[in-house]
């Protein structure tokens, strides 16, 4: 079974702190994603990585950065946390696009971040 794990289920940080959210997948997937999930808004893509050290901005990258030094690990960084970044953060991975069509994404359990 594909497994995507996230470093914490719950996290509480103060405004202005630097926050690291870690995600690890064990299926050798090339693609990894970070989403935030808010009620009524669904899942919104923050950043996407299609290879080690490669990244692309998603729909809401402002206030976030990412790091992918190893294929299995994708980190989301909040440089200076703000209260409007309180949310559920979901990591996902998928195999590389090849041939026709894209592939399903496998999600981690999520990290509920509260910024006070």
């Amino acid at each position, binding site marked *: 079974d594909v497994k*995507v794990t996230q470093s914490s289920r719950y996290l509480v940080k103060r405004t202005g702190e630097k926050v690291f959210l870690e995600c690890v997948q064990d299926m050798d997937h090339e*693609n990894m994603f970070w*989403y935030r999930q808010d009620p*009524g*808004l*669904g*899942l*919104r*893509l923050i950043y*996407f990585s*299609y290879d080690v050290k490669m990244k*692309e901005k*998603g*729909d809401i990258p402002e206030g976030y950065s990412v790091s992918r030094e190893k294929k299995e690990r994708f980190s989301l960084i909040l440089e200076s946390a703000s209260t409007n970044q309180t949310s559920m953060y*979901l990591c996902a991975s*998928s195999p590389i*696009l090849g041939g*026709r*069509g*894209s*592939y*399903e*994404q*496998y*999600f*981690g*359990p*999520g990290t509920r971040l509260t910024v006070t």
Partner: protein
Amino acid sequence: QQPVQSPQAVILREGEDAVINCSSSKALYSVHWYRQKHGEAPVFLMILLKGGEQKGHEKISASFNEKKQQSSLYLTASQLSYSGTYFCGTERGADSWGKLQFGAGTQVVVTP
């Protein structure tokens, strides 16, 4: 721009049918469907590709109308296990391969 899902919520009795719709204002290459149970991660249900190919493994079916940029998910003879929030994710292809934009979700409650 996020796709629009309808309805926002639906309550069913076991054995009843329901349809969830997903509409986009942009041309689509594929549509993904996921289900998320309360407190859990979203789980893949199905991919529908431009040209009619489908990939899925549940007893839940779906359709994709490329011309109308719409997809529908059909919950037939619903079971209690179908309860959860259903999300469609749309992929535009070309410069956005692999990147999905998700709808706001449709909450489904199946009662005995």
